[in-house]
């Protein structure tokens, strides 16, 4: 059975590791990015079932990343780790 990939974006190494290990323990393959630019590069290179991102990050923030990814016709579901901020800004 094909393993599903998830892109995890967070500038906090501890959170990246915690999310990766949790998702991997559920059988997913996880690719991590530590900032918005890194995330957009990795998004273009791979095929993901889900993108999970932190909102507050230096350089390109999570909301900017989500806006850019939303322009892709075959985009996967997007999940923000700060739901309150997501709902007020989108």
């Amino acid at each position, binding site marked *: 059975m094909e393993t599903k990939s998830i892109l995890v974006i967070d500038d906090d190494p*501890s959170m990246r590791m*915690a999310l990766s290990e*949790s998702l991997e*323990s559920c059988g997913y393959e996880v690719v991590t990015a530590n900032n918005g630019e890194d995330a957009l590069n990795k998004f273009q290179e791979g095929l993901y079932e889900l993108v999970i991102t932190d909102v507050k990050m230096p350089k390109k923030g999570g909301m900017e990343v989500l806006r850019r990814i939303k322009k892709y016709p075959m985009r996967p579901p997007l999940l923000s780790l700060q739901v309150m901020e997501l709902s007020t800004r989108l």
Partner: protein
Amino acid sequence: MEEMNKRAEKLTAMGNLAANIAHEIRNPLGSIELFASLIMKEGRDEKIRGRASQIIRSVRNVDSTISNLLLFARELNPVMKRVNLLSILMEVVAFTRDIIEKEDIVYSVSYADMDLDIEGDTELLKQVFLNLILNAYQAMPDGGHLHVETKMSERMDKEGKKHQSYADVSFVDTGTGIPPENIQRIFDPFFTTREKGAGIGLAIVHSIVGFHGGTIDVKSGKTGGTVFHVAFPLIKEYDAESNRNI
């Protein structure tokens, strides 16, 4: 008025500080909970899994306190429209009646025989009434009497420039009361006398009432019992109609 502005500035500064601290704390808390969940899931030792479960519980308690802080710190984005204050109050009273009456507390109401229309945000006003009712409830651990009363009054406005009609709502309880030395601080954020209180409920109430152009005051007897009184300015076209009935 100057006092209120100073207080509003102080609250805004404290709110911003609380919001920044809360965001900084929440991220590491999230990873702590995830790691503890992994230990729960993969750990073979029952004792270690029990400790991980305790970590998760504690993290959730801290997270809940932070949620309350953020509620206080968030900028108010009210949806202001003409609302019937009495209907809002009656809804909150009905919602809380079961909880209050289960605890050997007599709940009585006395409503003005008229609609009390004000310019306000329904959800924020519900928060005001809910907080004041729960505050009274928590002040009566051994039971007592909570009386909620509404009426209309007319007096000079806050600037002392013109007559204004107000919707008055009073919450009278027979609880433990507030010591005189605490009365001045009762609306200050993070001030609490309760072991598990965050001290933000009444600060939120104060901010919301002030935002609506209203006033709030509190009186407490030496032998117990407290009255919280809030007043909101009635909207002008309603004034003229009400005055005919006085």
